[in-house]
C-alpha cells in the first residue's frame, strides 16, 4: 500500500449527495480480479452512455478536471454496498483523497486499507471548496495528512480530525494483518477465556 503523507492535485467538485458505491463502480464490474486495472470503470454509468460515449455534462469529462486526483464531494459519499471495488476503482483511476462532510461507514473504512484518504470537513467549508473549484476550474487543493490540514485553491488552510490509528497506518502504508499479528498472544489468551466462558458458542460448529 502506498503511504500517504502530503498530496497536491487538481480537485474536482461533485455536488451530489449520497453518491453510492453502485455509482462509483456498477455491480456488473465486481467480478474482475484485482490485478486487472479497475481505473477505467470509475463512475462508469455517470461518465459514459450506453454506447460508451462520454456524457458531456458529467464533471469528470470536462477538460479542466480530467487530471484531478482529489474529489471534493458532498454528503454521505460512498454509501451503500460494502464493495471494496468502489475504492479499487478510485485508487486505480489515480484518486488519492476525497473531501466530504460524511461517508458511508464501510466505504470510509475500506479507503484506509487501500491508501485512499477520506477527509471529513464541515459542510460550510466543503461547500466553499466546491464553489471555488466551479469558479476556477483546474484549481489545486492540498491534503496534508502529517499536518492534518487541507489547503484550498485560495491558500486558506483548514484543519481536520482523523483517528490516530488509521492516520498512522496510512502514513506508513502498513498492512493491517501484519499490524494485528503483533497482538497474537492477546488474541490467543482471549480465545481461551472466551471459549471457557461461553462453551455453547462453538457447540454446533466445532
Amino acid at each position: 500500500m502506498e503511504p500517504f503523507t502530503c498530496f497536491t492535485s487538481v480537485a474536482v467538485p461533485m455536488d451530489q449527495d449520497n453518491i453510492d458505491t453502485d455509482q462509483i463502480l456498477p455491480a456488473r464490474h465486481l467480478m474482475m480480479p484485482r490485478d486487472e486495472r479497475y481505473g477505467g470503470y470509475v463512475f462508469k454509468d455517470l461518465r459514459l452512455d450506453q454506447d460508451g460515449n462520454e456524457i458531456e455534462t458529467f464533471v469528470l469529462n470536462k477538460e479542466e478536471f480530467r487530471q484531478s486526483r482529489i474529489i471534493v464531494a458532498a454528503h454521505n459519499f460512498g454509501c451503500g454496498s460494502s464493495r471494496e471495488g468502489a475504492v479499487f476503482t478510485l485508487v486505480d483511476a489515480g484518486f488519492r483523497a476525497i473531501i466530504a462532510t460524511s461517508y458511508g461507514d464501510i466505504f470510509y473504512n475500506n479507503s484506509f486499507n487501500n491508501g485512499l484518504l477520506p477527509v471529513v470537513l464541515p459542510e460550510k467549508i466543503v461547500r466553499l471548496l466546491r464553489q471555488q473549484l466551479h469558479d476556477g476550474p483546474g484549481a489545486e487543493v492540498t491534503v496534508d495528512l502529517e499536518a492534518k490540514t487541507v489547503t484550498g485553491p485560495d491558500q486558506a488552510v483548514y484543519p481536520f480530525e482523523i483517528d490516530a490509528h488509521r492516520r498512522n497506518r496510512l502514513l506508513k502504508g502498513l498492512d493491517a494483518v501484519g499490524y494485528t499479528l503483533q497482538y497474537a498472544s492477546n488474541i490467543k489468551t482471549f480465545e481461551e477465556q472466551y471459549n471457557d466462558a461461553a462453551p455453547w458458542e462453538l457447540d454446533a460448529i466445532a
Partner: protein
Amino acid sequence: MKQPRTLFEKIWDRHSITTNEAGQTLLFIDRHFCHELSFHAFNMLHGNNRMVRHPERTFAIPDHYTPTTGLEDKDYIDADTQALVENLIKNATRNKLNLFDLGDDRRGIIHVVGPEQGITQPGTIIVCGDSHTSTHGALGALAFGIGASDVSHVLATQTLWQPKPKSMRVTVKGKRPIGVTAKDIILAIIGHIGAAGGTGHVIEYAGPIIQDLTIDERLTVCNMSIEAGARAGMIPPDNTTYRHLKGRPFAPQGEAWEKAEEFWRTLPTDTAATFEREETLDATSIEPMVTWGTSPEDVIPVSGAIPDPKLETDPKRQTALNRKMEYMGLKPGQLVSDIKVDRVFIGSCTNSRIEDLRDAAEVLKNRTVCIPAIIVPGSGLIREQAEQEGLDQIFEAAGVEWRPAAGCSMCIGVNGDSVKNEERCASTSNRNFEGRQGRGARTHLVSPAMAAAAAISGRFTDVRKMGKN
C-alpha cells in the same frame, strides 16, 4: 452495582481483546460469512501465504451470482459467472470452511440462511463482506458489513479493529395500523431519519410494535438499517428469539442450550442505560410505503404524490430532486397510484422469507397478474416450505414465475435476472440506487403485499383497498 449498559455495549465489551493507543478496539469475531465476491479476500490471504484461523467459524454460501432458474451449466448467464461461483466453492474446500454447496437445500441468501440455521445467535459478533449483514441483528447479535481487506483480516486473525460506534435508539410508538408491514415500518424510519441519519451509529429498535414483530419481520427491519447509514441494527433477544432458535441445526442443544439461554437473558439493554441519540416515530400514521427516487429515504405513502422540486428552496437539493425525477421518469405532483409498473420482483434478503411469500400469496390468490413478475425464495428450505403450503400453485395460477433456485437475483441483477433500461420495477429488495437492478433500471421499493398488488393492477395500488377475493 454495575454501570448500566445497552445491548450493544454488552456485546462490544465481551468481544474486546484489547484497545490500542489510538482508541481502536480489537474485536473477536464469532461468525464470518463469505460469498462469491469474497474472492478478493481469499486472493489477499493466499497471496500473503496466510491461512484461515478459524475455518469452523467461517461459512461459505454462494448466493449473488447463482442462477435462479436452476443450477445446471445452462442456467448461468456466462462462463465467468459460473467460474466465480466455483471459485468460492474451491476456496471453501481448500480452507475447510463450512460450505453450503450448490445442491444443498440449506443454501440461499446468506442473511436468510444464517438465522434459519441458527448460526446467528444473540450476543455474537457476525461479519460478512456484505452491507446487509445488519440483518442478523434481529436476533440480538452485533452484525455488520466489511470490505474485502477486512474480510481477509478476519480470515487470517478472526478479529477486526474497530472504533467504537455511537449508540442510537429508534423507538416506534403507537399502534401498528392494519395492513402495515415491517417493510413499511423500516421505510418510514429511513424516511424519518434519512439515508445518512444513522451514520457512525448502531441502532437499537425499541417499542411495543418492535417487540411484537415476528422474527421474519425483525429481520426485514434490521436488514435495512444500512439504508439509514447505520453500522448495524439490532433488536434485544426475547422469548420470540429463543422460540425461533430452539432446535435449529446450529443452535446449542441440551445442557448447552440452558446455559446459553441463561446468558442471552442478561443481554437486553438495562433500564437505566442511555443512548447517545434517541429518535421516535409514531406508527399510527404509517401507510403502505413506496419509494419514488434513487435513495431509500425518498419514500412516500401509497396515497401520496411525487414531490415538486420547484417547492424546494435549497438550489442544491432542487438540482438533486430534478435529477432523481428525470432518472425515474416521473412528473412532479404525479399520484403514486397513477404510476404504471413494468415488472415485479419479490425476493432478496429483505423479503424472501416464508412470511413474505405468504403475504404475497394472500394477495395473488385467485387473481392474475398483468405484468411480468418473479418470486425467488430466500433459501432452498423456504422453497420447500412454500411448496408444501401450496404457495407455488397460487403463484403459478396467478401467472407469476416461481423460481426454483434461491439467491439474490434481481436485487442486484448480476446473475442475469435484471431490469432493463428505463423499465419500472416494483421490488421488495432494499436499494433503489441508480442502476442497482440493471443499467437505467427504475426501482421502487415496496413490501411483498404491495409488490403483489402492483403485479395485479399494473400500477401501485393500496393493497388494503383491494378487498377479499
